[in-house]
């Protein structure tokens, strides 16, 4: 049990590695890991407590 160097799981099976690989393979580089707004982003929520829809052209 203390010989963790012989764990049969390659690092490539880790979900964080898989997620990074998936994104790189599509040549995508999102600026954020996830769209969860922090306290400092509170202004972005203004006016968004209602339904927002735009008809665009």
């Amino acid at each position, binding site marked *: 049990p203390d010989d963790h160097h012989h764990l049969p799981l390659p690092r490539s099976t880790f979900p964080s590695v898989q997620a990074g690989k998936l994104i790189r393979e599509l040549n995508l580089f999102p600026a954020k*890991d996830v*769209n969860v707004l922090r306290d400092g*982003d509170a202004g972005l929520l203004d006016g968004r407590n209602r339904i927002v829809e735009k008809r665009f052209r």
Partner: protein
Amino acid sequence: FPNVVDDEFGGVSVEDLGHHAGYYKIANSHAARMFYFFFESRNSKKDPVVIWLTGGPGCSSELAMFYENGPFTIADNMSLVWNPYGWDKASNLLYVDQPIGTGFSFSSDIRDIRHNEQGVSNDLYDFLQAFFSEHPEFVNNEFYITGESYAGHYIPAFAARVHQGNKAKEGIHINLKGFAIGNGLTDPAIQYGAYTDYALDMGLIKQSDYNRINKVLPVCEMAIKLCGTDGTVSCMASYFVCNSIFSSIMSRAGDINYYDIRKKCEGSLCYDFSNLEKFLNLKSVRDSLGVGDISFVSCSPTVYQAMLMDWMRNLEAGIPALLEDGIKLLVYAGEYDLICNWLGNSRWVHAMEWSGQKDFVASSEVPFEVDGSEAGVLRSHGPLAFLKVNNAGHMVPMDQPKASLEMLKRWTHGKLSEGTAYPEKLVSEM
């Protein structure tokens, strides 16, 4: 959208088309807002409403919108070019950024990040309720759920959630008629078992590799069995064990593109979808969409990892009840995809226990013809159909746009095993 090149779109001006985008607050969330695009049909407002879900998990549906079956593609100069085979030619088409945290969808509360299909499908159901209350003119249209890849998980769960809501007379009744899964991951026990068979058949591995890699299979199958439909730690364990099968195949297959084994990945690059991020970050586009300063997260690693315990759960389990109630299911798969290959999909569809199983298995395969040539092979019985698509990888609408639009038209018209969906139109054109 600014910069639409509309000269290829005969006769109809862009101003005549109903294109909408926006946010709906998700009712049963802490603070989640789901972003969507809605394109009214280029054919008729009476066409079905079709929702598309992209997989990942954690990738924005705009990936499919611009690179597969949406109304436009993005040119290198950031103008938009009409897609002659966009699915909005046969449907009123919805793309949603889901699960929350993906694309332009966001929350100010981390608890809105979903970890399982119950959370994902409840959010989508709440989205639909908001959508149809804003667009009551579409509420009586037929409604279909479609998508690809990891959406093979989302789609059955979402269809079951809609059906359950209808039965319980919850909210607005949604006229659900069917759901379609393209190169999806739905029943991992069967699909992970098919990896080595497909890889050997396609010459990606040798017999000795096959024998060696298959030694892991019983452990993977046991772990998935323990995971079942609602396991937790066992599901995480099975993710690691079973994905070692896939990694082993890839380490032997070299730099092939596992979404399309005919292709190679150059460097670490298998596709170049970077124009999506460039386009959706243009100020003029962001102003048109009204997204303010919200980031566009094309694919979210956090959402991907949050779904770790969901990966190996069997989502086939809820499908038979939908079939018994007459809800149609189409499973289709491009023949050159390894990661969600047609063999694994075909096997779980055949193994699924429902009242029509024997007749489905006994039914004959028929060619799926488009313009007089064979675009695929179809097997169907009652509400269930399986289509193996020729000359396509993981992203069927990108590789075979015309055939995939024809597939959608025929399926929604209940004429999948027949010829063209609009014979009368062809006659009039003649």
